[in-house]
């Protein structure tokens, strides 16, 4: 086999392994092996790609040793840095890590484009157009993801919005298109470095400017979108480099990212454009009318004991659980209930928390087995036969206004039917509203009582109450 053939074979195997790996993600039973399978794909293709040394451009021949050294060094540093940070980052910081890794992929695609465009010779139009388009997408994805990271990591706290933001962004975009066309038409693949630098600089600036005004809570949607963008950029640069494996991997990721983005947007009852271009909550809060009734507080101990003697308890975790990092205490409490013979399960809304699947990861972290985590469709009919629904730091995902109030910004979003349970307990700190900023009628319902306090603190009380009961008995 020639080196070229080995590389092509390795690429093919990698593409196959990616798809097989992603297929394994269709069940939590096989998902763990799925990432390993996909991992082999990247490993095989990366190792094989060193065989390019046997077929470099004659012009690059003199640099070969240096380039090879640089390649090994870059690989080593990149892998080592990412591996270490990835291993030690706390699970709560996952979203921003995904953002940063994703940005790196976009940046890499941009670098490929930059090298190709500073080309060793004239480039045919059919290559240059995609190279330029991929460059812009990759660069925007890079700088935008970094901003998303900074926001999620608390490095940037404010949503920074320039006056006339839309106009500035549009102008910048027009400038990028103009520069791109100029590079294409006037320079024929030999555009001067200064021009190329301005072009890339403008694209990076666009990513920053587009992302800055978006609120931190909307960042997961943005990350998912940039994930799709990076996929697209990789696919396009794959076309330029004539590497089908990059095209396939990129397109598949593009599909995944797009799907997840749409899912989040739909579950939030907003369009993707709305997320990107308008400040949320500005109109939302005004909508809700006055709610009749009052919130009825209850002692933590009393709530815990009533659950201890219930037949069936469904727990609805929300963003507040993540904020309080109370998943460990929660599972401790659940195990006590189970030991007392109570049937307990978790009802998880698809957009509970701030990322799709956020709650599932959180609970899994605390050791909750995945067969106790029920999806909305699976569990929603069970509330009628449930004694107690325990809502922990969730708000929007149990707001009945989504079913009834046409004027509410969350109207139409599917919700968990906590209100159908015989008794509802809600753990939250006070009168705080949820992500969408609307009032929640459920909290005023006859069968609902509030347990005020930080989720972690309340759960500690729950646990104490149950243990006391056991000791007394």
């Amino acid at each position, binding site marked *: 086999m020639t080196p070229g053939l080995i590389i092509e074979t390795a690429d093919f195997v990698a593409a196959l392994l990616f798809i097989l790996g992603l297929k394994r993600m269709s069940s939590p039973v096989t998902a763990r092996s799925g990432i390993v399978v996909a991992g082999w794909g990247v490993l095989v293709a990366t190792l094989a790609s060193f065989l390019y040394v046997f077929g470099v451009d004659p012009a690059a021949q003199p640099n070969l040793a240096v380039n090879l050294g640089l390649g090994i060094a870059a690989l080593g540093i990149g892998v080592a840095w990412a591996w270490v940070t990835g291993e030690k980052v706390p699970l709560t910081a996952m979203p921003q890590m995904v953002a940063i890794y994703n940005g790196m992929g976009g940046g890499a695609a941009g670098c490929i484009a930059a090298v190709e465009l500073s080309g060793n010779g004239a480039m045919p139009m059919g290559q240059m157009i995609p190279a330029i388009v991929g460059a812009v997408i990759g660069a925007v994805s890079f700088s935008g993801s970094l901003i998303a990271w900074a926001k999620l990591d608390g490095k940037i706290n404010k949503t920074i919005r320039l006056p006339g933001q839309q106009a500035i962004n549009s102008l910048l975009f027009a400038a990028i298109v103009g520069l791109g066309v100029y590079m294409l038409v006037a320079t024929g693949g030999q555009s001067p470095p200064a021009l190329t630098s301005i072009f890339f600089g403008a694209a990076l600036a666009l990513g920053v400017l587009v992302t800055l005004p978006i609120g931190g809570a909307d960042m997961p949607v943005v990350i998912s979108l940039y994930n799709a963008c990076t996929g697209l950029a990789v696919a396009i640069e794959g076309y330029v480099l004539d590497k089908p494996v990059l095209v396939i991997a990129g397109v598949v990721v*593009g599909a995944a990212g797009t799907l997840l983005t749409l899912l989040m947007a739909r579950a939030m009852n907003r369009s993707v454009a709305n997320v990107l271009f308008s400040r949320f909550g500005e109109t939302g809060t005004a909508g809700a009318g006055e709610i009749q009734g009052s919130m009825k507080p209850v002692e933590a101990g009393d709530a815990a004991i009533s659950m201890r003697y219930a037949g069936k308890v469904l727990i609805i975790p929300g963003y507040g659980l993540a904020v309080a990092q109370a998943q460990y205490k929660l599972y401790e409490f659940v195990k006590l209930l189970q030991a007392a013979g109570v049937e307990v399960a978790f009802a998880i809304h698809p957009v509970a928390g701030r990322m799709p699947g956020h709650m599932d990861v959180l609970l899994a972290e605390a050791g909750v087995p995945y067969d106790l985590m029920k999806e909305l469709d699976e569990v929603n009919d069970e509330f009628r036969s449930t004694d107690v629904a325990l809502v922990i730091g969730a708000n929007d995902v149990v707001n009945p206004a989504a079913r009834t109030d046409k004027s509410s910004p969350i109207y139409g979003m599917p919700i968990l039917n906590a209100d159908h349970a015989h008794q509802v307990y809600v753990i939250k700190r006070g009168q705080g509203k949820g992500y969408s900023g609307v009032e929640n009628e459920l909290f005023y319902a006859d069968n609902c009582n509030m347990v005020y306090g930080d989720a972690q603190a309340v759960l500690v009380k729950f646990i104490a109450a149950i243990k006391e009961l056991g000791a007394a008995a």
Partner: protein
Amino acid sequence: METTLVGFIALYIVMLATFTGIEVISRVPAILHTPLMSGSNFVHGIVVVGALYALLNATTPAQQVIGFVGVLLGAGNAAGGYVVTRRMLAMFKASAKEKA
């Protein structure tokens, strides 16, 4: 390298990969959506292969620098995406005998 992704063939590949992606990914249950996000993020880490190709063929110092950065970023994408996804997935366990 012989150019093979010409004209319609590239379109066919894109079309089929799109269908494959949509079908495979829409089967992933909501419970795994966070690992899916980071896992698909990992998959585009394969871009490192393209960056390596660009770097190995670099002729000017500028190209070498950009290529180096590209490989660095691509490697970070791949390795980071892998570790984070593996860590998350490792947490998903089924109910075992060892009842509390």
